[in-house]
């Protein structure tokens, strides 16, 4: 499979030696944080990206520097990535399927005479 992808595209400068690199994460140990930004008063905070920082204060400051340099935000949330639990895409079937056969939850399910007007 690997020999299929040797073709050098723009931005892909060929194989690098992976695996050999010993991770040096012990060196700094700055944890990873997820950044959520409210772009405008009245809107939800939305996931903007992630960054490394020593603590929450620094995460907020770094987030301001990288994600809001052009007034993209009025409020920032940060949370350490390890505290986020994500649903498993393999279980998406069981998780979301029960909703499919409940069409009566949608307004379009109900056939009302035109005289009723907009409802």
């Amino acid at each position, binding site marked *: 499979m690997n020999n299929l992808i*040797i073709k050098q*595209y*723009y931005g892909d400068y060929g194989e690098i030696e992976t695996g050999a690199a010993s991770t040096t994460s012990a060196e700094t140990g700055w944890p990873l944080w997820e950044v959520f930004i409210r772009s405008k008063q009245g809107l939800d905070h939305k996931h903007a*990206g992630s960054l490394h920082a020593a603590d929450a204060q620094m995460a907020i400051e770094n987030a301001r520097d990288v994600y809001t340099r052009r007034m993209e935000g009025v409020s920032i949330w940060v949370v350490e990535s390890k505290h986020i639990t994500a649903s498993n895409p393999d279980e998406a079937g069981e998780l979301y399927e029960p909703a499919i056969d409940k069409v009566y939850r949608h307004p379009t399910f109900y056939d009302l005479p035109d005289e009723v007007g907009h409802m």
Partner: protein
Amino acid sequence: MQIQDFEKIFQGKIDTEIKIEPKDWMPDAYRKTNVRQISQHAHSEVVGMLPEGNWISRAPSLKRKAILLAKVQDEAGHGLYLYSAAETLGVSRDEMIEQLLTGKAKYSSIFNYPTLTWADMGAVGWLVDGAAILNQVMLCRTSYGPYARAMVRICKEESFHQRQGFEILLVLSKGTPEQKAMCQDAINRWWWPSLMMFGPKDTESTNSDQSMKWKIKRKTNDELRQQFVDMVVGQIKVLGMTLPDADLKWNEERNHYDFGEIDWNEFWAVVKGNGPCNKERLDARNKAHAEGAWVREAAMAYAEKKSKKLERKVA
């Protein structure tokens, strides 16, 4: 389910333009290709700060200094977005940084050329960022979700880079004879390396187009390069300057500009580490990393001390 079934579902998503997200099943080679490409892209943004950083202290005015500073800061941000995108694939930040610092990982060869005059700031913004933008606009639609989202963010910031570069050259092109000559000289030196940014010719490779099939890429090197040439030929007329290529001419049949042959020996020499600044760039990154070590450690020590204090208070 068999592995073939997983692969079928995966390719089905790609074919119907459904993005692949970090927790989705993906072939190992897809993961590996993305890790390599995204991390190399991140390294390029980071090393790309060096040739321009070279002129921050010598920018001709406070306005130009502020602009250049803002541009270089953007590139640092681009590096961060991309490292974060690569991290979602399971590679650690420190591992990527180590690959860059030890020379195991590659980055765009364009940054191994020196920036000799102020006009180079113009040529780099216009041509180098201009070439990068064409690749990045395409990558906004790449199949891996986090990479595509990083690209959308980056593209929003890039157009300022190209415009400020062109404006630098525009001002020089209306200046004294010396300034005009400086402008033309910078274009002459950056033109061919910019064309090389798009990589080897499509015919160079006999390998299968796996990256296309996976929609990591949507255009070939030659397609992007042609797009770049056609774009620049139009713009250089505004500057009243010329491109250093005698073979450049409009081809009625192809509806594109023809252009001369790239010096592929130079291309491969720089890729293999023998460009004018390969060593200087790596040395600069290593120096910065080493000299910043105490800051990283101190910040961590401070954070730990603070959290211990907090624990004691709670207890």
